């Protein structure tokens, strides 16, 4: 197990290097730092001096890969690639365009993101699985068909509609909770209720339908017939046998997103004014702050790979037959 984990983590390194090279190529080779400077300072009427100053302030005035002017190890380390990309491997993300430390921003903004994402994830999982089990219980009846129809309808609605509609109905019409904002501690409760609710409702369609497919696949298997032959009630068959055996396909889709919960949700956070990582990313995209976008891309892929490793570990927990080696 330990050996397996170490191997998986070592395997992640080339992938992260790939991600790093890809974003580096996207941000610095396709468009040179000069282009970025001109973009930031306004396309027209910009003097070469201003561009040089902009680049020097942000450390973009170095060669891309190899610094011929420097000596020794500085040949490699005194370059944009080394300073902007390689340093990410030790989670040193540098500074954003407004001069703040990106690492510190990330650390402080993780909390609000999690305050929304974690409850949404847990409540959502519970609701979706229950709804799917209910549809499976009443499979091939009018209730099941109505449930599937509802799912297809719900998944055809744009995610933006859930947010805008929810904000309008709950906050503006009924005045139950504030439209947007955030506060730490218990005071924050009234701010996070609506985003969580909307997050759960928005996922009902696709998720429940997916779980239903998984359950239906399991229910046709031999062990279910055996369980029924033993005289177990349909409810018991569903909850103790089908649910347990459907764990592997469920975990495959679910565990991988757990680490990504840290990243928050772009849409929800920006609509509800939650100072989390999602709104941080959106602001960076709108302000064209490339250091922040690159940092978030890197963080996202680290978390994704962590999710993949977690998924493998979770298999061993629910299915003793799985051995990691």
């Amino acid at each position: 197990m330990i050996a397996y984990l170490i191997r998986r983590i070592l395997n992640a390194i080339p992938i992260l290097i790939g991600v790093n090279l890809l974003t580096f190529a996207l941000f610095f080779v396709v468009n040179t730092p000069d282009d970025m400077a001109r973009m930031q300072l306004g396309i027209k009427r910009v003097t070469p001096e201003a561009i040089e100053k902009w680049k020097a302030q942000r450390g973009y005035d170095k060669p891309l890969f190899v610094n011929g002017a420097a000596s020794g190890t500085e040949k490699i380390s005194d370059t944009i690639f080394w300073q902007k990309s390689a340093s990410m491997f030790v989670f040193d993300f540098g500074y954003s365009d407004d001069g703040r430390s990106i690492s510190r921003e990330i650390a402080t903004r993780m909390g609000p993101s999690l305050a929304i994402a974690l409850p949404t994830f847990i409540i959502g999982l519970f609701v979706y699985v229950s709804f799917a089990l209910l549809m499976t219980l009443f499979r091939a009846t009018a209730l099941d068909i109505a449930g599937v129809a509802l799912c297809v309808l719900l998944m055809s609605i744009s995610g933006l509609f859930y947010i805008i509609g929810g904000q309008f109905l709950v906050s503006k019409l009924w005045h139950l909770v504030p439209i947007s904002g955030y506060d730490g501690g218990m005071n924050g409760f009234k701010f996070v209720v609506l985003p969580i609710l909307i997050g759960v409702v928005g996922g009902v369609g696709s998720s429940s339908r997916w779980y239903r497919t998984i359950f239906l696949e399991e229910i046709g298997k031999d062990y279910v017939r055996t369980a029924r032959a033993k005289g177990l009630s349909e409810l018991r068959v569903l909850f103790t046998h089908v649910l347990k055996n459907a764990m592997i396909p469920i975990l495959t889709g679910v565990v991988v997103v757990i680490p990504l919960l840290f990243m928050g949700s772009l849409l929800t956070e920006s609509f509800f004014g939650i100072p989390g990582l999602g709104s941080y990313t959106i602001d960076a995209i709108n302000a064209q702050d490339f250091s922040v976008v690159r940092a978030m891309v890197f963080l996202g892929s680290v978390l994704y790979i962590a999710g993949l490793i977690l998924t493998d570990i979770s298999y061993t927990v629910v299915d003793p037959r799985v051995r990691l080696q």
Partner: protein
Amino acid sequence: MSFMPMILWSDALVFLLLAAGMATMWHVRRHEHLLLPWRRVARSSTAMVSLLVLSCFLVVGLLDTLHYRVALPQQNNGETVYAPEVLSVFDKLVEPLRTHTEKTYSAPFALTLYAKESTTDAQGNVVRDFPRLQYGGAHLKDPSQQSEDVVRRGGLGALAGLLLGVLFVGFVMVLRTRKLKGAAPQSPPVREEAATPHLHGGGRQSLPLVQNLTAKYGALIITFLTLATFIGAITNLATAYHVLGTDKVGQDVLYLSLKSIRTGLIIGTVTTLVTLPLALFLGVAAGYFRGWVDDVIQYIYTVLSSIPSVLLIAAAVLMMQITIDQHADWFETSAERADLRLVALCLILGMTSWTGLCRLLRGETLKLREMEYIQAAQSFGVSSMRIITRHIMPNVMHIILIALVMDFSALVLAEAVLSYVGVGVDPSTISFGTMINAARLEMGREPMVWWALAAAFAFMLVLVLAANLFADAVRDAFDPRLSRSEA
């Protein structure tokens, strides 16, 4: 007035897709085994109804794809000068909708603007009142006649639409009955007969053919007539009113919604032009050759899929924006620039979304290459290239088709989200995303400006719902894992 046809990049890609679609259709029609799953699709009335709705969208989208530029009256030393504005055949068809712009917001069917304005009346007094619209309901002298007029116009339009619909359905039925009657005495089976043997088997002689057709296509006919009635009513109303209101700069929301269809369809379909070859080529190659080829391809798609897709898209779009902004000289008109941005967005969406399909295809190829018939081909010395094209590709086609129809609705929805994030289509391109984005800011106004949002969401819902239902039917018909009695 002369005009110059114009083929934008996205138009060319749409025509390419259309040609490819036609060629596939022609190929499928000539091969009974390929036609079989499509017959299963055709037998599902949900699928046919969704297809009907989708084809309405498709017609609007295609008409909107035939672009041209009008020649200006003045000439530049004998050379014709063309207007910078790029129009489409669809724009020409709905010209009143496009040109009847008001000053600012107005509600659906409204006679007056949304906001009060100061005007001077005949006596020279300044009056603050809702000014009448320039076009919407301008034919009415007395505002109190409005509801009566709306009902009358709507009813007349609906009646005309229904009548035309009934005529069309009757015409098609007569043609069909003739064809079936003519074919019935002879023994070679007609295609439609093969499609539903159980319906024709015993009942053909006893049931009258018309009744038979109605039973088969009942849902389809009802949907068609409903659509015809609805479109008739809307068309008649749209000539006199702004049926869905107007937006901030006074443009008709119905026109904007209809124009958005093309953008949505392009995002949903042109993207597959990128996804398909990449996923097919790389996935099959990885699965078939294994070894280092597999390692390299797996590495590439793991890297791509490990980046959260929104972020990767955002990063790529930001870079594309810089490139486009710096090369303003590449584009003759602003429409060309916006269009290239749309195509680039499709390209980027395609580059980030092929990994899932690629993984599926790799897995399937790994399984297929161990099959006896492939091993037999290998031992006969058939080249790898030929084995892949002759034996593997036809056997993974169902996966590709299912993935493509499933992706379509996701892409249409993604466009709106991306436009909101600021990495979507060009702000000057009319799309559901830009419509929602513009309307979102007006939610806080009192009374609320709801019509633009509602229209964008409603159009999107119908499009995506139809696409989802159709995709489900296609999956049910093509997925070999689903047990089927007659297959």
